């Protein structure tokens, strides 16, 4: 449809643009998919990405300090994301805080940490490798896109071939059964949140590469877009169905839609609202087959 309405939409450059734009979202969505599979929800992406963006920009070569850790700095940022995920998971299983509240809190903590590190002066990065990720291309696609593709592959392997991934499915399918089978569910829940956090951490690094600077708002809006993408792709919010590949398709759909709206001249001011409508419509469509009278929805 967009291809008909706008000749520019059809161009090779635009396709490249779209795929590149999808990179960060794809990594965030990969992470969030595991949490959604369990039937939990994760709203911590924005905060975790902000913290990781600031961390990485202060650890690689930058204009604020003399650090030049390169890859190690990136690793630390990813680990930080992982730690934030652990925090969400522990709050869920130990303190019994519902996941939406626990992760919302962790998101705020992440933003707070990021703001502290930001300290009023924007750190611009000068690390050639990290900056290069967003610019240099391989087979026509930026390095970031290849990183995202790798993440999707890793996510799919996790989901298909590891106990962690399979138990995430099982927790979403019938958690009581796991308990009745003598499986200790809690460690797996924490681990799933930790894996998701690591993906967000990496996404924060990727945004920093794109912007060339560490911003507190690096992850702003990604939490919601990622849930939209996962749901559009067919991952159920009630857990147990969907998966990383579903979500990858969802990411492409969401990005094509956003890009298409821009190309046919819809004001960017409308886009947030449109995205909101899409997620509600997608969820409504997903639950139609299982709607029951007098079903209680909370």
């Amino acid at each position, binding site marked *: 449809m967009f291809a008909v309405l706008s000749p520019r939409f059809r161009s090779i450059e635009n396709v490249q643009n779209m795929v590149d734009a999808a990179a960060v979202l794809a990594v965030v969505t990969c992470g969030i998919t595991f949490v959604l599979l369990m039937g939990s929800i994760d709203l911590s992406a924005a905060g975790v990405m902000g913290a990781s963006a600031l961390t990485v920009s202060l650890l690689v070569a930058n204009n604020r300090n003399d650090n030049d850790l390169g890859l190690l700095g990136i690793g630390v940022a990813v680990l930080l994301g992982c730690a934030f995920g652990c925090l969400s998971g522990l709050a869920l299983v130990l303190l019994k805080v519902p996941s939406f509240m626990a992760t919302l809190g962790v998101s705020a903590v992440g933003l707070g940490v990021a703001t502290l590190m930001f300290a009023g002066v924007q750190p611009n990065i000068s690390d050639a490798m990290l900056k290069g990720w967003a610019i240099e291309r391989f087979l026509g696609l930026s390095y970031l896109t290849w990183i995202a593709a790798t993440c999707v592959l890793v996510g799919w392997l996790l989901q298909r071939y590891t*106990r962690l991934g399979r138990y995430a*499915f*099982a927790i979403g*399918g*019938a958690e009581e*059964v*796991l308990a009745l089978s003598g499986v200790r569910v809690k460690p797996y829940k924490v681990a799933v949140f930790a894996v998701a956090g690591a993906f967000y951490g990496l996404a924060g690094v990727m945004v920093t590469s794109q912007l060339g600077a560490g911003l507190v708002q690096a992850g702003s809006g990604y939490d919601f877009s990622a849930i939209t993408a996962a749901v559009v792709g067919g991952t159920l919010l009630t857990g147990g169905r969907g998966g990383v590949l579903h979500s990858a398709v969802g990411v492409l759909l969401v990005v094509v839609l956003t890009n298409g709206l821009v190309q046919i001249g819809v004001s960017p001011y409308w886009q947030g609202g449109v995205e909101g409508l899409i997620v509600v419509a997608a969820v409504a469509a997903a639950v139609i087959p299982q709607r029951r009278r*007098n079903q209680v929805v909370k």
Partner: protein
Amino acid sequence: MSVPASTPALEVRGLVKHYPGVKALDGVDLVVRQHEVLGLVGENGAGKSTLLKALVGLVVPDAGEIRVRGEAVKLRSVVDAADHGIGMVFQEQSLVPNLTAAENILLGGEGPGVRRGVYRWDAMRRLAQEQLDKIGSNIDPLVRTDALSFADRQMVEIAKVLRIEQRSQHPPVIVLDEPTSVLESKEIETLFAQIRRLREFASVVFVSHRLDEVLEVCDRVAVLRNGQSVGEVAAAGAVPRELHRMMIGSTGSDDHYHENAAAVVESGQPRLAVRGLSGTSFQDVNLDVAAGEIVAIVGVHGSGREDVCRALFGAEPVTAGEIWMDGKKIDISGTRAACAAGIGYVPAERKTEGMVGPMSVAENMTLAKQRARCAGPFVAPGKQATVVDRWIDRLSIRTPGRDTPIQRLSGGNQQKVVLARWLVGGDIRLLLLDHPTRGLDIGARSEVYRLMRELAASGVATVLLADSLEEAIGMADRILVMNDGRVVSEVGCPAGGKPSPLDLVKEMV
């Protein structure tokens, strides 16, 4: 360690378990011999499910002991029980629907199927196949569980339970809780063949409501009543009637069902007339209930009687049919319309559908008929107090006060509050009672029966889904038998001319 063949595989002595207001187990004794299929029967509320839960560590008994091959054990979890070689196939099937059969069979004990958290699908398939081979099943281990039939899923569960053989060096004890309730007759035959195979290398505890099945497959049958063991019989040569008598005990003398208080049914226009009611699980149901009459609907699990009951209250969609109340056609497309027509519904799931646990007795009682306690849009505390206290008094509800959270009351008193919810409006014409005595002890049940009689005498029509056949026969003036979504027969049931349970069972299955 070898165990003499005469030592029982499992022995239960004096097991006691209290729940608030109910003594679920009151000194149960049970012996399961090696390589024996033991049947366990009892009415609803006799303590079967609590006993089974105690056997697999889901319930920790207050007193008494469980001995496995002569050795006293404490079972605190399913894993504990599995370590001692006791496993259970649960009534509500306990498989993860979105995993493969292999994963379900190996769940929690994948062994070499998973190395360092990474799945070896070929090993998973092989290990699961070994389990399935034990029971001679040809299910593909890598098929998703929700794509299997009920019968196949049950085979998967049995295969899963047999994994406990690896945890214990001894022949396992397998508990099957109502395994036949969801199966077709041909599938039941397969299951029975399976149980006979299991006997070769295990002991089996078989629980079922269908006494003929129990006698067919078991070696010995133990009977529970009111949380106590009341006896056992050798299955060979025994007849269902004999078991039945043991299950219900002698209730004839003390008029448990208050049959003397049965209301005089007015003839003439029926209070409720249902014509050709059809829905997803029932077809062409016709039903008349007169004012003051109690009509019970009986049928096995899956007969559709629960759905009919809910449909009458507008809580289940209907595709065709008419419902008339006192000669006026009513539209029951939702529960609101049903309430307005003077219909009240007491749901089977009291804790989740019948009451709001943390809310007070007063709030729960006035939930449906707010007008009874309100002046305009506001709650009138004085009015509420008067109304609620009057019903607490009239139904002799034992509660510290009207402001006590309902969840602190005993089951029987909770049920009275739920019942009172429909009475406070003063406009009740038809009561739909869906298992009103489920989970209540004998005394509380008797009180609910008395209330039903009183309401009937005041002209309220009642549709009853009884917890047991005995209850249906004891309480009803008339019984409708449902089978596979249709009403297959109607049996008069007046005081002094009650039909026998076995006659009804014939129609039900």
